[in-house]
């Protein structure tokens, strides 16, 4: 009997909250593949790129062990992301993954997923995208992902990578969501480094995809393949196509909005707050949160009261929650691992007119180097003194 057949199907609620967990010291790549082991996944297609490769290689091992029904390496990222679109349309549970330049190569296809209302999980192991070439974890690519229509989470560490990935399959396939869900982590720092991860037993798995309970009918003998072929007028430039595009795009946006309650239910909210009463606040996502936790510890040792807001969901963005959390803030800093400061822009746009706080334009590191906690501390203390 295949190993996956021996696994017991449990409800998402049981898997996420009730099942007893054991603690393991593993890499982010291992954490992601352990999530896949329990995800009742049907198919995974990807094209190798550092630092993503190790995870998808491990998923290949899972295929070898019988946990997936199909798995292959596509000809490139455009091929991988197109093929996974086709797989998702047939109603099976789908996974793909990429990093930096690979993601950019396949961006055309990625941006087409939400419009086709394709449930699938896309793992992003962030890597530098600009020249000069580098394999380090700069997360500038997420600036592009923000506007594709995909739900987008930013995992802080190995535990998050496990939990978010597992939850993403369920959120993605909810009838009122029916959208791709992307789970980003900063490459190497999370994927190739080890951390503690608490996991439920590998003898459990999530219920399979219920494709007849989703917003868009799947391809079968009754349904003509793909929605675009059925809705031919949308490919023409005319007033019908404008209407349809408007409707589809609003539909994607509305579906993202509807994902909020499932993110709250399965991931404990779109953000997480430490020291809510502090007037100096760090807002961060991804591994910048880990650096901020250490900076916060050091600041507290030095007698400063500092708050930390971890943004877990970038799309949908926790607009109301963030406004609420920053009502009393006097100073805000936004540490980021990219040169454009995409999170800073999100924060400013969200808080404009809703806070008196001074929002520092940084700190930021470029090219995929880590952010020294000393740097965050310096910005914090400068902010305390009253200005950057």
């Amino acid at each position: 009997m295949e190993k996956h057949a021996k696994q017991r199907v449990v409800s998402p609620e049981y898997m996420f909250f009730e099942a007893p967990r054991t603690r393991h010291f593993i890499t982010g790549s291992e954490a992601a593949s352990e999530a896949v082991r329990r995800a009742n996944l049907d198919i995974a297609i990807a094209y190798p790129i550092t630092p993503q490769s190790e995870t998808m290689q491990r998923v290949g091992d899972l295929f070898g062990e019988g946990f997936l029904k199909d798995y292959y390496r596509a000809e490139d990222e455009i091929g991988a992301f197109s093929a996974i679109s086709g797989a998702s349309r047939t109603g099976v549970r789908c996974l793909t993954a990429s990093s930096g330049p690979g993601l950019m190569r396949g961006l055309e296809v990625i941006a087409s997923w939400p419009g086709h209302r394709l449930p699938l999980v896309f793992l992003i192991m962030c890597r530098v995208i600009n020249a000069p070439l580098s394999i380090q974890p700069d997360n500038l690519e997420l600036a592009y992902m923000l506007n594709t229509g995909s739900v987008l989470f930013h995992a802080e560490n190995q535990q998050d990578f496990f939990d978010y990935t597992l939850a993403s399959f369920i959120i993605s396939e909810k009838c009122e969501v029916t959208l791709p869900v992307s789970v980003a982590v900063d490459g190497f720092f999370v994927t190739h480094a080890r951390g503690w991860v608490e996991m439920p037993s590998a003898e459990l798995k999530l219920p399979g995809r219920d494709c007849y309970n989703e917003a868009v009918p799947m391809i079968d003998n009754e349904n003509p393949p793909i929605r675009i072929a059925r809705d031919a007028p949308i490919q023409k430039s005319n007033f019908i196509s404008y209407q349809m595009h408007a409707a589809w795009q609003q539909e994607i946006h509305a579906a993202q909005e509807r994902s909020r309650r499932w993110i709250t239910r399965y991931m404990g909210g779109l953000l997480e707050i430490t020291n809510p009463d502090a007037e100096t606040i760090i807002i961060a996502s991804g591994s910048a949160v880990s650096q901020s936790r250490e900076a916060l510890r050091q600041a507290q040792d030095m007698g400063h009261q500092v708050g930390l807001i971890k943004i877990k969901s970038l799309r949908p963005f926790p607009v109301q929650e963030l406004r609420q959390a920053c009502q009393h803030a006097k100073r805000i800093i936004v540490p980021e691992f990219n040169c454009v400061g995409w999170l800073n822009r999100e924060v400013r746009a969200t808080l404009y007119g809703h806070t008196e706080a001074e929002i520092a334009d940084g700190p930021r590191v470029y090219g995929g180097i880590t952010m020294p906690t000393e740097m965050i501390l310096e910005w914090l203390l400068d902010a305390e003194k009253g200005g950057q």
Partner: protein
Amino acid sequence: MRRYNIRMAGVGGQGVVTASHVLSNGVILSGGESTIVPFFGSEKRMAPVESYVRIAENQLYEIGEILYPNFIAIFHSQVITHGKSYTMPFYSGLKDDSAILINAHHPLPLSDDEKRELCEKRARVYYLPAMQIALKHAGTEVATNMAMLGALCAIIGVPDLASLEKAVGERFLGKGFVASGGTASLDKAMEKQFTHKFELVQKNMEAIHAAYDFAVQHGWAQAHSKESDLACIK
């Protein structure tokens, strides 16, 4: 347990990353917390390699490269003499009152500026003939990384040798270690050289013990000075 941010630098093929994994795992087996981050370009011999180990008593949050270490281990003299390093000079970012352990059987020719800056940082520089120790006690220079571990362990006081031995065992006798293709093939070659994996572990431990003793005999273990946890912050 004191907090350590350790930067290990060496060249491809020396087992810098392996050593950092063993150290980190040893700390965890001894009841502490530790994380590692390996850092290298293309996997080839003699190319620069760094690995970063964080050691703490309680939960560690930070990740990524260690830019401001309070311990530096240099596995190959070319890191210093040929600039085979991601962080130039080799002591860049070193916190005051910290230690540097260098694999060399005699002091390296440092420039006057380097000497002055190390002096200003009140750095303690230890030269360990790690390769000679490895050759003598393990019969192979490939165990140089283990000798470095032994001395490092003696200087910082963690992990205890029993935990380190367990970590070495787990590394070579297996427990789901994720190795790169290059490392895996090297492992195979080493196994052939020693008839049993068990013997490989034994020889590695002998190199560790010898270097540990070397460090203790030279008084490096007692050299804890004014440095404190605050050195990690300031």
